[in-house]
């Protein structure tokens, strides 16, 4: 039975709570309400308010206390209600969560997962549609991942919870209601990229909300006789550089597609890495398609802001014509 991405996350949390008594779920409205996206629906009913915790509205508090709980042997899974509200916790995430393991000479591990519904596409008001993965990927000491399908949402979250690393876990909110199969097992490790569509003419490198857009672009390009490969990075830090390099060395062309603003986005990092790794195999410069370098606009403009099929194909054409 195909399940929704939000359900797949829910079931991963359910499994973790059921099998590991040290797992806690904490966040704003995650209990009785089941979260504003209903991702935690029913968990408090099954595991009680001591393990599925409605917190005060204090993001620094959510992550800061999760760190303390982790030091005491618990495995907290925090929910930040929306991408734009993670910043009050930024200090705890970047200065504490990311650094405590190194600062303590490896003596302390803080297995905290911070789940963040991310990106736009749902017509929301300001601060509810940001793609802010680069801030976290830029910070050493964090594992940063983005799930694009129910299968990955489920299994990557279970792997993230089981991992001793602090993990920033991005869930593309516009995909919460999309359906897909969840297999009985994980088919990839947490840090591996996935080829979601093989192709020989050009590689689209993407993640999260843009995977579906890239697949649609690849299908459209097929009608024009172009065979595009689509690779979902899944892990944004560390990046599966070997897989990316191998793919692009094969096709000779790459376009990185992300919803985040282009300047300082991960696309630049990936383009630079590919240039370093396989410059002699490239037939064209690595191109980037991303959000514009402006604050995420009002809802009625988001279709102009977010990369879509046409903007991806425009970059594909430019690369192929190079």
């Amino acid at each position, binding site marked *: 039975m195909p399940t929704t991405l939000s359900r797949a996350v829910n079931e991963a949390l359910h499994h973790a709570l059921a099998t590991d008594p040290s797992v806690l779920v904490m966040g704003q409205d995650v209990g*009785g309400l089941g979260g504003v996206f209903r991702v935690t629906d029913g968990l408090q009913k099954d595991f009680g308010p001591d393990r599925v915790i409605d917190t005060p*509205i*204090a993001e620094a508090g959510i992550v800061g206390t999760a760190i303390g709980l982790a030091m005491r042997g618990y495995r907290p899974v925090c929910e930040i209600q929306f991408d734009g*509200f993670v910043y009050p916790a930024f200090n705890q995430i970047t200065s504490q969560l990311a650094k405590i393991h190194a600062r303590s000479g490896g003596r302390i591990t803080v297995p905290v997962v911070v789940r963040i519904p991310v990106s736009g596409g749902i017509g929301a*008001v300001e601060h509810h549609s940001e793609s802010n993965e680069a801030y976290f990927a830029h910070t050493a000491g964090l594992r940063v991942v983005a799930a694009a399908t129910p299968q990955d949402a489920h299994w990557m979250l279970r792997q993230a919870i089981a991992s001793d690393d602090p993990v920033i876990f991005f869930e593309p909110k516009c995909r919460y209601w999309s359906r897909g199969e969840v297999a009985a097992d994980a088919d990839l490790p947490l840090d591996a990229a996935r080829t979601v569509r093989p192709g020989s003419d050009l590689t689209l490198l993407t993640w999260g909300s843009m995977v579906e857009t890239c697949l649609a672009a690849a299908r459209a390009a097929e009608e024009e006789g172009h065979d595009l490969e689509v690779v979902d990075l899944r892990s944004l830090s560390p990046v599966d550089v070997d897989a990316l390099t191998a793919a692009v060395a094969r096709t000779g062309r790459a376009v990185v597609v992300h919803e985040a603003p282009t300047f300082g986005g991960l696309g630049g990092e990936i383009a630079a890495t590919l240039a370093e790794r396989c410059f002699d195999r490239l037939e064209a410069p690595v191109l980037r398609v991303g959000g*514009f370098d402006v604050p995420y606009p*009002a809802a*009625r403009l988001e279709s*102009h802001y977010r990369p879509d099929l046409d*903007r991806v194909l425009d970059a594909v054409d430019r690369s192929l014509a190079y």
Partner: protein
Amino acid sequence: METYRLLDPDGTLRDDPAAEHVDAELCRALYRDMVLARRLDSEAYNLQRQGELGLWLQCLGQEAAQVGSIRAIRDDDQVFPSYRDHAAAMCRGITAEALLAQWRGVRQSGWDPAEHHFGIYTLVLAAQLLHAVGYAMGVARDGTDEIVLTYFGDGSSSEGEANEAFNWAATVHAPVLFFCQNNQWAISTPTSAQFGAPLHRRAEGFGLAAQLVDGNDVLAVRAATQRAAEAVRRGEGPALIEATTYRMAGHSTSDDPTRYRSEAELDHWRTLDPIDRLRRLLEREQWTDEAFVADLDAEADALGTEVRRVCRALPDPDPAAMFAHVLPTGSPTVDHQREAYAAYSASFEED
């Protein structure tokens, strides 16, 4: 601390020095403010249900807290609102069109904060409290006698920034009045899960002059705010008012409050409705007559028509708007993207 109240739910005025200043004119004016706010709010709710607005956060039930407080300060006292302060915004002359634009998704904010002495809405909880303190520090430096009022919710008071603001204001003696609309809920989280001690008590610990007031009693809110505002204006230091009220609607049009609160609780708060309460006083004192009622009905109907009209007439923005105002001095990166996107869009028209 006892809750300060002037008007009982049955419409009787209490024996209190502040009650002496209560007259027909005042009550009619406050009543009108609240009725018009409720009409705008319900029209906006309907428009959201019809797909004309992306989202709406109702102020239903909180009209007295907002009207009573904003009508107690001077028009040039700067206000830093949260996001459901529509009744207060209307008292500052902010139009329906300006109020709805943000929620229709055509722009990020609707009005000029300088013109109305009323800031744009802040959706990131508690951020505006620090802005209010800083603005108040500026007022103090300038040696003028305005004060600053900032609205926030019970849930927002848990944010670190809220508590930084309280402490900061007390430390620097800033002329700021923190006004909490404690509407009992923060989305699905009740105040019992939000704080261990009532906010007004916490405020005293910070060194703020604190007051607990019945937020559904517009006369009490007005009198308490007036007193607090005048003390702040005299330089006696910052203050906090906790107004006890209730969010009668869902958190937003996306929320389903039946998942976490009971009909019985709503029924209880219905008996405390701020508009009904003031109407009982107006009737009891015979401060209202047919003409007043008819005029106000007509005015509310006209406002309803206006709200529907301006909402539907709000045009979709030009894509170029998203590249505007990124930096006051401009940015070549943004200029380049604006031009490239215009050329790209034009290429479709040629096809």
